[in-house]
């Protein structure tokens, strides 16, 4: 299976890449290619022009400081998983290590995952839970899109046609207890329910709490109802099961041939509760 013909440009700079996107509305950005190329091989996608952004130095940035973690859009999962970011955002590296398989992790990129916006992508939960900011470039300059606004519909982001994702910024500090728990689709490896959870407990009180779910719902979502039930409450007084149940209601679920709406909601609930229990036990 071979893609339909297309033109290829390897961009050296963000400006060069944007130029192609401006000139050709059917052009697409190519990073790791592990979502795009299979669709092109099956001829379900046929962009006229691919702009390879993986060799733009700026897009491979990995930086951490006391107030922000910056991950370039073309940073590959394998690079991220072995980086020192694990020390400040273990959630991110934990999630990245559960994406697909070793070969895919050596090609797939953080920006590719974000821009492809598969509603079962592992990183979607992480972006939402951490209130990540998507930094996008366009001829109009740079703008930052908060994670809560990024995912518009399945496979659709807030990115305009002539815009390009340059990097993702994660505000620091984040709650200390973090985890990503995943129930994977046994065939595809995508999340059937992936839960990004963060929690601070100070003197028996739950402080910050962040919960986001990917895969289970039609769209990835923040489980704000669960967060509200937990934040500011004494650990001894909360019931995680109840919180997870409330949080699961924040999602919208659809049935497919193998996984019913009810099952998906249940998985979101169970995985959230397990994530909370794990963090509370740390």
């Amino acid at each position, binding site marked *: 299976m071979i893609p339909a013909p*297309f033109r290829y440009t390897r961009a050296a700079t963000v400006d060069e890449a944007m130029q192609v996107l401006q000139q050709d509305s059917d052009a697409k950005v190519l990073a790791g290619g592990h979502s795009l*190329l*299979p669709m092109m091989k099956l001829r379900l996608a046929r962009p006229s022009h691919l702009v390879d952004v993986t060799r733009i130095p700026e897009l491979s940035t990995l930086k951490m400081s006391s107030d922000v973690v910056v991950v370039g859009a073309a940073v590959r999962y394998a690079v991220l998983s072995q980086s020192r970011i694990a020390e400040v955002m273990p959630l991110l590296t934990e999630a990245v290590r559960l994406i697909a398989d070793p070969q895919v992790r050596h090609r797939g990129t953080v920006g590719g995952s974000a821009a492809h916006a598969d509603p079962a992508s592992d990183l979607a939960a992480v972006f939402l839970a951490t209130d990540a900011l998507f930094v996008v470039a366009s001829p109009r300059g740079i703008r930052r899109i908060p994670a809560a606004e990024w995912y518009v519909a399945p496979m659709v982001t807030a990115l305009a046609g002539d815009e390009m994702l340059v990097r993702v910024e994660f505000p620091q500090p984040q709650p200390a207890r973090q985890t990503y728990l995943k129930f994977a689709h046994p065939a595809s490896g995508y999340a059937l329910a992936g839960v990004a959870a963060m929690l601070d407990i100070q003197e028996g009180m739950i402080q910050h709490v962040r919960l986001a779910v990917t895969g289970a719902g039609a769209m990835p979502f923040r489980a704000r109802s669960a967060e509200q039930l937990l934040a500011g409450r004494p650990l001894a007084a909360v019931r995680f099961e109840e919180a997870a149940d409330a949080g699961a209601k924040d999602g919208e679920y659809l049935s497919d041939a193998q996984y019913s709406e009810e099952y998906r909601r249940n998985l979101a609930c169970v995985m959230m509760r397990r994530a909370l229990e794990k963090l509370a036990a740390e």
Partner: protein
Amino acid sequence: MEARLSIQITVNGKTVSDHVEPRTLLAHYLRDGLGLTGTHIGCDTSQCGACTVLLDGEPVKSCTVLAVQADGTQVMTVEGLAAPGTAHPVQQAFQEMHGLQCGFCTPGVLMLSTWLVQQHQTSDLRHIRESLDGIICRCTGYENIVKAIARAGELAVDEPAAPAASQREGVPS
């Protein structure tokens, strides 16, 4: 047909210069362009891993990499693992442990295994099983693949590990 682009790839230590269509997949280029038919294509959705090669030392599925994306890289295929008549520790281990049957997925499995050995990720059998997420084998039930990878780690224990690119890069300053 779009204009062909020039590429230069070092495959199994030999640098080749060529002109390819942008849509030519690395797996097809290796097989049809260079006659390296050891790299197999087992699916079209990047699941099976039969086409796994090492790109700059890292395992990737060559059916999901354009040949033009590999321009300027080092590619190693199963044919490059060892000189004819000799065996790489991974090849030896797969023979000793009966880690293959029909042999079709084997080249990809060997290339992934080579990387696992280089990364010293072969001591824990459960970890090996999880590292095989990107491999589908229909013959062996994986049992002897897992044992072969562990055995390869033992055989290679004296050889210095080559650092993969992802270790060289990626450490924030």
